């Protein structure tokens, strides 16, 4: 036997050294799921932007991630607060360092001022993404032209953007409607006596009206009263009814007698808030950002609600049924409370904002990102409050890896988004910070900036309804099956903190080489099973026999 062939006891020793977590039982600080490396390169990528301003901009700071020019690569719209918002066009080489240049939007300076957040959607069914812009003052509906320019559509749509301090947005296509229903969430009404305390503004629901000549407008908004200073809202089918309800997360800092809210929206009928008699439990948090995912694939989504202090993870309780929305908080059980900084010496409670479930290491398990940061200089809350990256583990729990992943910067995060900017199959991260430059992290997997390396296999799925209203299939569910395991993701517009995205939906598929993808279309019909290979971008058009492949090369 030669010197390179070792006795087996040496192998056992090596195994012990490699996996100390197994040697001493449970070690919650060690993630068994692989930790991706993130490299901050905003400046190198050409992104020089800061969200800033007076106390109205202590909140907000969102980003819209969407393809503005039809090249299928995600571009970046960044809110600026007192600074003008900017649209950055993605020119990143495939698999390379991130690169952006500033896109000319053809919008006037006023339109881009006082922006707190933005969400992409296709509100006119031309399959080109448009934008809903949340502002301190008039909100805007911007019709995308497909070349990163936009036309103001407020007047054409009869949409009154109002004068509120708007901090949240969501959209859905109600049953029977060819156009989206829009919900705007508002914060403090500064004009009321006693403001800001107890002076939360109502939220508004805009349902489309279609005239006899087919023209759509949004003439008369419905007030969702009372409003409790919402910072995140989401149309969500919480009870598998096929009828989305509106979940509203509110900031207890300013409201009086308020709570988290859930509004039923029966088609053609006025919205109605769920009350205690409906089973809705009174919950008061500093609600900043909703994230939704169906962790246990039972058809009922779980919700992450960021706050000051502990994050809530809400799951339908055993006492719930399809008409009784009783939730239990399972954050502690899952290791997802993220209630104080995981790095540094500051042990005060932390402040959570944008949250998002994604799979950053492509192991097939959902991970949770939370943007963190002190509101401004609140002394009772942590000043150094790094963003969280909580990796899903095979035991169903989550482990914090923000520090080892390289995202624990001393900035006050607000809005954010995870998207694959360089089309390499690894989700990158953009974080809009208050009063400091935007952070842009490239996910280099198991490698380095110079030599990125993949982790697990992945799949990127874009879903369209060609020739039909609701081109981007908002309200659809994507089901990805590998082996005997299935994960699902809903196509939604809303949630997070003033930040949204539409485009390819990312799935990690671990060691699977193939996947079966099915779509539950917004009308409830299921597609057949599309057979696709991992590590590819696929486009599924409703009614198509096979998925299309897209190659960024």
């Amino acid at each position, binding site marked *: 036997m030669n010197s390179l062939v070792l006795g087996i*006891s040496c192998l056992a020793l090596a195994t012990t050294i490699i996996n100390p977590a197994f040697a001493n039982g449970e070690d919650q600080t060690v993630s068994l799921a692989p930790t991706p490396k993130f490299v901050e390169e905003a400046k190198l990528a050409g992104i020089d932007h800061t969200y800033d301003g007076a106390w109205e901009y202590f909140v907000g700071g969102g980003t819209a991630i969407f393809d503005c020019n039809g090249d299928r690569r995600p571009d970046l719209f960044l809110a600026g607060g007192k600074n003008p918002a900017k649209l950055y066009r993605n020119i990143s080489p495939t698999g390379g360092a991130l690169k952006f240049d500033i896109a000319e939007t053809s919008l006037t300076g006023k339109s881009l001022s006082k922006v707190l957040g933005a969400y992409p959607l296709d509100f006119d069914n031309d399959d080109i993404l448009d934008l809903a812009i949340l502002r301190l003052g008039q909100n805007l509906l911007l019709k995308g032209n497909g070349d990163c320019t936009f036309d103001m559509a407020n007047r054409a749509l009869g949409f009154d953007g109002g004068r509120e301090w708007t901090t949240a947005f969501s959209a859905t296509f109600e049953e029977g409607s060819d156009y989206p229903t829009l919900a705007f969430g508002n914060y403090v009404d500064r004009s009321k006596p006693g403001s800001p305390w107890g002076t939360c503004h109502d939220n508004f629901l805009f349902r489309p009206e279609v005239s006899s000549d087919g023209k759509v407008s949004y003439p008369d908004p419905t007030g969702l009263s009372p409003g409790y200073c919402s910072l995140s809202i989401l149309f969500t089918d919480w009870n598998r009814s096929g009828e989305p309800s509106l979940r509203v997360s509110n900031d207890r800092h300013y409201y009086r007698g308020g709570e988290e809210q859930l509004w039923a929206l029966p088609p053609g009928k006025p919205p109605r808030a769920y009350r205690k008699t409906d089973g809705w439990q009174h919950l008061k948090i500093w609600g900043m950002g909703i994230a939704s995912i169906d962790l246990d694939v039972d058809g009922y989504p779980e919700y992450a609600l960021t706050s000051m202090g502990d994050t809530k993870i809400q799951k339908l309780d055993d006492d719930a049924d399809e008409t009784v929305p009783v939730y239990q908080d399972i954050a502690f059980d899952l290791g997802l409370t993220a209630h104080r900084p995981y790095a540094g010496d500051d042990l005060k409670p932390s402040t959570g904002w944008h949250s998002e479930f994604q799979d950053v290491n492509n192991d097939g398990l959902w991970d949770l990102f939370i943007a963190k940061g002190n509101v401004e200089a609140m002394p009772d809350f942590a000043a150094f409050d790094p963003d969280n990256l909580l990796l899903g583990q095979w035991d169903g729990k989550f482990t914090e890896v923000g520090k080892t992943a390289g995202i624990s910067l001393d900035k006050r995060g607000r809005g954010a988004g995870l998207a694959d900017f360089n089309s390499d199959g690894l989700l990158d991260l953009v974080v809009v910070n208050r009063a400091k430059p935007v952070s842009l992290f490239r996910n280099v997997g198991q490698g380095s900036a110079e030599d990125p390396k993949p982790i697990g296999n992945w799949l990127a799925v874009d879903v369209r309804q060609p020739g039909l209203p609701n081109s981007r299939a908002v309200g659809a569910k994507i089901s990805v099956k590998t082996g005997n395991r299935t994960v699902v993701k809903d196509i939604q517009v809303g949630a997070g903190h003033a930040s949204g995205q539409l485009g390819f939906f990312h799935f990690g598929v671990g060691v699977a080489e193939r996947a079966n993808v099915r779509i539950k279309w917004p009308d409830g019909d299921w597609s057949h099973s599309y057979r696709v290979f991992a590590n590819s971008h696929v486009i599924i058009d409703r009614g198509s026999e096979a998925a299309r492949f897209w190659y960024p090369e």
Partner: protein
Amino acid sequence: MNRRLFYSFSLALLSLFLPMTAAADPELPPWTEKAITKDVDIETLAKSGLDPIPVLQPLGEELFSAKFTTLDGAGRPDATGAIVPTKVRRRGHQSFQRLAGPDANACSSCHNEPVIGGSGAFTANVFVSEGFESADFDTLDPQFSNERNTNAIQGAGLIELLAREMTADLRSQRKELLAKARASGQTETANLETKGVSFGSLSAHADGTLDVSKLDGIDDDLTLRPFSQKGVFTSLRQFTVNAMNAHHGVQPNERFGPQWTGSNDFDDDGFQSEMSQGQISALVAWQATLPAPTIKQDLPDIWQDAANNGETLFSDVGCASCHVPSLPLDSLIFHDPGPFDTAGTLRQSDIETPLALDLGTLDWVKDLPRDDQGRVLVPLYGDLKRHKIADAANETLGNELLAQRFVARDVFITSELWGIGSTAPYGHRGDLTTLNEVILAHGGEATASQKAYSSLDETGRQSIIAFLRSLEIAQ
């Protein structure tokens, strides 16, 4: 310096700077029932500059022949044989089970005719399914499994090298087509062909999307997967990782380890880290360097004459259009891990330096013919392409009910016929006892050739049999 002396010298040099000198495990008694007793650090080996073949081959052969025991972690009480790590719904009562597996003591338990690494008789059939979650309730019913005969592995290293080159070539053609469509702003279509084998056509649109509906005989991702009866496995490494779990319940770390399963003992048999990447590399190296089948020498004149005539007829009736006598191979360097494996099978990106096995150093490779460009002509009698091989008129080879890994039930990769004279029985289920039967079983795309064969007179048909019987795995 002869080869053996060179290696001795090199290894002696290596031992001067490598900290590893353990040759045997002092903790194991000589009568140990453990079968896995040695390992190789492939990162160190790759960097050493040494020829990895003589280092890995002996261990690979030992592992291929080893009857794995529970002391090695054999058995998988809590895991299925599925390619993607999957837990059983309920434990089976028996540690071995011919349907759900584990179903074999050693690789060589089935791969043993006419020599180790060869094919297997019907006795050694396996049941292919990813659906077995319950050994008690999932049954032999074909809705749950396909029954397959054991393939011979001889020459597999060259097969994988051919597949890698063809994959790279096809992907290069795809890249060019996409660039052309993006530049022209319109849809562009190209016929895909590599090494003289056509794989249909591909259309690229200006927006970078592809129409793969006209691809023929290959997966949509243009990865040529040459292994298994179905042609659905990319590499010897991928197949070996699958097989170690499925057939033996020995779970390779690179797929069943904690980073992909959260556990060092996914099958919950009390044994952690059951097989290392070095041990898989040894198995791969041994299989990749197995001598390719050859042609019988010193045939009696009557057989030789018939075989010569049969070889001509084989081509004339159209058999050679799929069972292509040889394909040219540019490079004989077998990198392990290979370039096209994905997560769950060790990838080149997972290590600093892949092993480079130079198959050109092997005597049996040196004996292979070369073309005028110096390329080795691999005499595989195959095209590494999948074909529909059954239809309503001739459904013998369409006897499976389950599609496998997206490939329809009546579609199989062209069997390489080298060595066919040594690998009876025939057909993917191994239920055809003569060559004549399996030829007549060809339907689907092979219908014309089969009919041409059938229309030959008895002498002609016998000549083709004589030719095929001359293709052997040397003993």
